[in-house]
């Protein structure tokens, strides 16, 4: 009885279509622990563009007026 149930259950699970939107956007626990351990270090790599670059972009925008 148990075997029949398991076989039927596995058949349903294995053949069930998996929608991408239903895939859990999570990492395995080990990966998450490691990721969180390096997050602070990763944050130190953040950089910003030069002000000159921003000014050039804003000047380009103003040229549309």
């Amino acid at each position, binding site marked *: 009885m148990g075997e029949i149930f398991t076989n039927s259950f596995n058949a349903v699970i294995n053949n069930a279509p998996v929608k*991408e*939107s239903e*895939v859990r*956007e999570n*990492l*395995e626990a080990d*990966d998450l622990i*490691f*990721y969180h*351990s*390096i*997050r*602070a*270090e*990763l944050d*130190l*790599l*953040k*950089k*910003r*563009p*030069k002000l000159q*670059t*921003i000014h*050039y*972009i*804003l000047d*380009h*925008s*103003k040229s*549309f007026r």
Partner: protein
Amino acid sequence: MDFQLRSDQDLIHLYITGDEAGLVELIRRYQSKIYTSIYLLVKDEYLAEDIFQDTFIKVINTLKAGKYNEEGKFLPWVTRIAHNLVIDHFRREKRAPMVSNGDDFDIFEVLGNYDESTEDRMVREQTHKDLKTLIQLLPSEQKEVLIMRHFGDLSFKEIADITDVSINTALGRMRYALNNLRKMMQSKEMSLKN
């Protein structure tokens, strides 16, 4: 008017209707995420500045032309533009932006090369500089996902859309990236306790 409290959509609407402050706030909000993502992929500050600038010029031209699809989110859209410009650059340069791009990537082969040239520097540099170096050693697909996830703050769904792969593939690449970083750090006996 406190622009910092406005949604991206509000700021875009303000900008399209003539208020430059909407664009200023969008740039202020996302400049670091977008610039860092570009910089870590191209590894050159001047080139990153150029691509960042070109990215926002495309953004401005699209918004001003009324072609922006309001259903999409702003950051993934801008990241996609930046990503495409980075790819265009490497196509023009005809050079690969990474050590290895193949499925047969072996992290220990890379570590062998890495040992010879930079071992002494590894000892002296601060941990975050080491980590930056290790990120550059990842295969481009793995590096891309790590950068977009962490620095771009994108979901795996958004990363999958931008890189034209399934969510599972994007997720798998992130796992490989983390595993490879962990292996490299263990191999180098790097510590993140500081």
